[in-house]
């Protein structure tokens, strides 16, 4: 049902270190950067997440309430993605941990990219 997502960037090239770091931590990679667009997905593809300038030519802007969730293979990968994202220009929206606090099957961390787009990286249990 979900085919792809575009995520607007104020400066796509400047945002690449953030997205490269987050995806690398969870088993993904940048498949291309061409014509001002960057495409991410699992190692080897296909790419389904595109970082790009907005279609309308206006400045990119993060939304509020809209969030893209990416599944990681383990809780360690969630921690690594959060740390790597923060070290690469992202901002913290929630430290790695179970949600809710006593959850045995959802472990997530929350970040915003440099533009302000919110993402979640999570692992599914049982733990």
């Amino acid at each position, binding site marked *: 049902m979900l085919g792809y997502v575009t*995520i*607007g960037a104020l400066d796509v090239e400047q945002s690449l270190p953030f997205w490269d770091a987050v995806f690398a931590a969870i088993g993904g990679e940048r498949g291309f950067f061409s014509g001002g667009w960057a495409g991410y997905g699992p190692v080897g593809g296909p790419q389904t997440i595109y970082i790009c*300038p907005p279609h309308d030519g206006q400045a*990119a802007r993060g*939304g509020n*309430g809209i969030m*893209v969730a*990416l599944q990681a293979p383990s809780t360690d990968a969630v921690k690594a993605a959060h740390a790597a994202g923060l070290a690469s220009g992202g901002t913290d929206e929630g430290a790695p941990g179970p949600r809710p606090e006593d959850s045995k099957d959802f472990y997530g961390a929350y970040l915003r990219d440099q533009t302000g787009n919110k993402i979640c990286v999570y*692992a599914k249990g049982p733990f």
Partner: protein
Amino acid sequence: MSAGSRPVVSYLTIGADDIDRATAFYDAALAALGLRRAWLNGGWAGYGPEGDDHGTILICAPFNGEPARAGNGMMIGLHAASAAEVDAFHAAAVANGGTSEGPPGPRTDYGEGYYLAYVRDPTGNKLSAFYRPEPA
């Protein structure tokens, strides 16, 4: 790594301040793509295909308590099974509180046979429905 943990978008939240207005829109627009509302609880609604009881698209008030706001540049692309589904998605969206951001039609720049339509939900979040023929 199992197929279930590939780093692709596995779910989404979409902010809405008025859940009734949002569900009117999403019930209609997503039904055109074969998706149904699995639940509505505590101001959240979850949508997915039959058998997805958790929901893959979750409509909710923003976590930080601030008003919901669409991003610019962020767009959710949803699979359609046919061009007719794309047409139905666009019509249902516009008839239920959405606005058109691009009428249904071929988008051959993206590939042969591609057929897309673009809408915004009542909050302004942008969505597309796309049909892509299976490779021969």
